[in-house]
């Protein structure tokens, strides 16, 4: 086996793991936005999830408990957003930005005692035969369960939105909340549930970073991935499959630039670190140039305050 071929496995594996946090955060936000709510607080919810998950795993030694608490913490942060925007009718953009700032500060506060503490590894899948396959075995069949859960969420979210009645109702609420209300649907309750789901997904995304991707706690560990997830949703024109492609692209370029740095090519490392963000945005802008597509898929009530007066 040549050295080039030997590289494929690790690169593929690294790409899948780099894409996972984006996948969770973006799919969660996709459901939130399809219900007509714009929550810009993804980064903040991810940070709260990351630190809570890390704290619980560091105390209990169980990464499963860590992920569960991270989902709850993310949903709890999102509930704050839901109360402010859906019940008290605060502006969604301002509240979302505030939520991110809040998450940055809160996670730093909680995380003070956890910097530099080691935690146990998240167990990885091992299917005898498959995992031992040459080149791709480790990458495709040797990841931890969260990576596969993330991949499974893509068809699951698609099936929920386009294959179930609840999904249809959620899309209807995001499309025209006044009409949905007139038909007797509980707009605020449906949106609140969507916001909670988005928060839980962001929490898991954050915990994946602190428990798995780089198993440690550091302030600002999400490094702007919450914002990339938000961008992914829009540029993927609110389609789960395209979110997956965008997340893979981001993951792929992240790994590629690490390898380029490793080869010692004379390009400033800051420039290379910028590449995944730049590449994701550029490619998705190119994909979504077609404004007609955006208008057909964008939830028409996105970000609009709903007040149920008749």
């Amino acid at each position, binding site marked *: 086996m040549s050295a080039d071929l030997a590289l494929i496995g690790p690169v593929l594996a690294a790409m899948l793991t780099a894409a996972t946090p984006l996948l969770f955060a973006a799919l969660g936000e996709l459901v939130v936005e399809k219900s007509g709510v714009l929550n810009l607080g993804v980064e903040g919810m991810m940070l709260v999830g990351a630190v809570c998950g890390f704290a619980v795993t560091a105390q209990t030694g169980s990464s499963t408990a860590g992920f569960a608490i991270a989902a709850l913490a993310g949903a709890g942060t999102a509930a704050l957003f839901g109360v402010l925007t859906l019940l008290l009718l605060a502006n969604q953009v301002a509240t979302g930005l505030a939520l991110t700032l809040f998450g940055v500060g809160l996670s730093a506060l909680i995380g003070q005692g956890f910097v530099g503490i080691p935690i146990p590894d998240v167990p990885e899948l091992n299917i005898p035969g498959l995992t031992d396959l040459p080149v791709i075995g480790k990458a495709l069949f040797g990841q931890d369960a969260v990576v596969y859960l993330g991949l499974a969420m893509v068809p699951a979210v698609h099936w929920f939105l386009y294959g179930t*009645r609840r999904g*249809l*109702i959620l*899309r*209807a609420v995001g*499309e*025209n909340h*006044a*009409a*949905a209300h*007139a*038909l*007797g*649907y509980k707009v605020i309750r449906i949106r609140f549930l969507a916001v909670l789901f988005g928060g839980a997904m962001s929490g898991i995304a954050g915990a994946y970073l602190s428990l798995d991707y780089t198993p440690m706690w550091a302030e600002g560990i999400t490094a702007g991935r919450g914002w990339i997830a938000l961008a992914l949703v829009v540029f993927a024109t609110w389609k789960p499959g395209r979110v997956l492609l965008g997340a893979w692209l981001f993951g792929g370029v992240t790994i590629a630039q690490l390898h380029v740095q490793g080869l010692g090519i004379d390009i400033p490392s800051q420039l290379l670190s910028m590449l995944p963000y730049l590449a994701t945005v550029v490619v998705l802008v190119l994909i979504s140039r077609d*404004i*007609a597509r955006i*208008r*057909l*898929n964008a939830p*028409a009530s996105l970000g609009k305050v709903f007040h149920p007066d*008749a």
Partner: protein
Amino acid sequence: MDSATLSTTRASTPPHRLELRGITKRFPGCLANDSVDLVLKPGEIHALLGENGAGKSTLVKIIYGVLHADAGTLLWQGQETMIPDPAGARRLGIGMVFQHFSLFDTLTVAENISLGLDNPGPMDALSQRIAEVSERYGLSLDPRRHVHHLSVGERQRVEIVRCLLQDPRLLIMDEPTSVLTPQEATRLFETLRVLAAEGCTILYISHKLEEIRALCDTATVLRGGRVVGSCDPRKETARSLAEMMIGTELSTPERLPHGVAGAPKLQVRHLSTTSDNPFATNLKDVSFEVRAGEILGIAGVAGNGQAELMAALSGEELLPEPAAVTIEGRPVGHLGPRERRELGLAFVPEERLGRGAVPELSLSENALLSGYAREPLVRSGLVHFGRARSYAERIIGAFNVVTHGHRAEARSLSGGNLQKFIIGREILQRPRLLVVGQPTWGVDAGAAAAIHRALIALAQDGAAVLVISQDLDELFVLSNRIAVLFHGRLSDSRPTHQTSVEEIGLLMGGLFNHPPDEDEE
């Protein structure tokens, strides 16, 4: 005698489908329904009449469970009933077709209908049922199409089929024909008559009195939240019905004398637009002119390019070809709304809140927004609030705007009153050219007559007026000439006295494909 025969004799007068007793509903600052009594019998088509703000919408929302009455009882088939929400109303067998369709543009017909049903079942079976019902009542519909591709008439069919699938005993129709061509309205009436013959009660709300005379068996008239009378509309005239609604004598505008048109004020030459918006209708080679002293009416069902034409004329949408629109001979296609206003153009957009007026601003601030162009309201960049206030008060006085003063927020006014204010704001500037979209949409008979008189007076003073409207009766009252917009194309204009509602109705359905300038006489 056994109990069965006893109960039939007791039920010798069958129970009313729906009876309202003393329904009262109060909103902050107004009594929307004041002890309203209403009886609806099985199989009747019952009209609910009244001006804007008379309480019709509130009353039907109470029947449909959207609002709850503060006092009064509601009897369904003789049983006292509480209707907690629209789903509860649907379970009883009450269906409603809304004035502003409650449809979802990016969903399919079947998905839209499914959302309005409580037990829609699987999509395939539902599509089958939709096809059957639309066949039976002559409402052709394809369940798989997306709603944004449908015409307004087809969208209404979606709403009606959605109601019919629930086998309703009472169907409420709120202004159903305001967006239909005359031919589409005739088809709707046939459907409604079939339904009524099957025993379904229809509660019909409309401003169009001729329609009510043609269709309805009974009419109940509301004024100021109270029932002021009921009648058999077939035995009344449109005028007597209108006078019952407004409570005073109706003064109708006089028709314009023919042939007074002067020099062209607005010319549109080969105007075509392209839009990125998939919901937009592109204009295709539209040409017309409006002369001083005349009113040109542009008819057409909504969504055939009216919004795009308004945007191109007002300057909201800039045109690549400046000469496509000229005002008094000057090419203005490249100029924005402000420059066009300074050249003498005034316009009243169709959308009152958001385009015609800023909902959160007071009336005097709204008066300032377009009034600054010709009224001395701004001096060296500073607003002269005293003058803005007196300008707003002049509009309120001259156009009988019902409001508690110039400080009232625009959104606090009813639709008709706000429309009078907006039209007044433009007319008091004495524009040489006025473009109006849907001047009396949703406006009651009294206010509509006032707006029509003002437009005609403006034209008689030598201004050129362009009216874009879906209401043919209105266009026939106002216009010297009428043209029709269909799928972004404009027909040639016809002098109003040489055409008929039927002919314009056919044009609105797209029956014109002759080359331009064929019927110039």
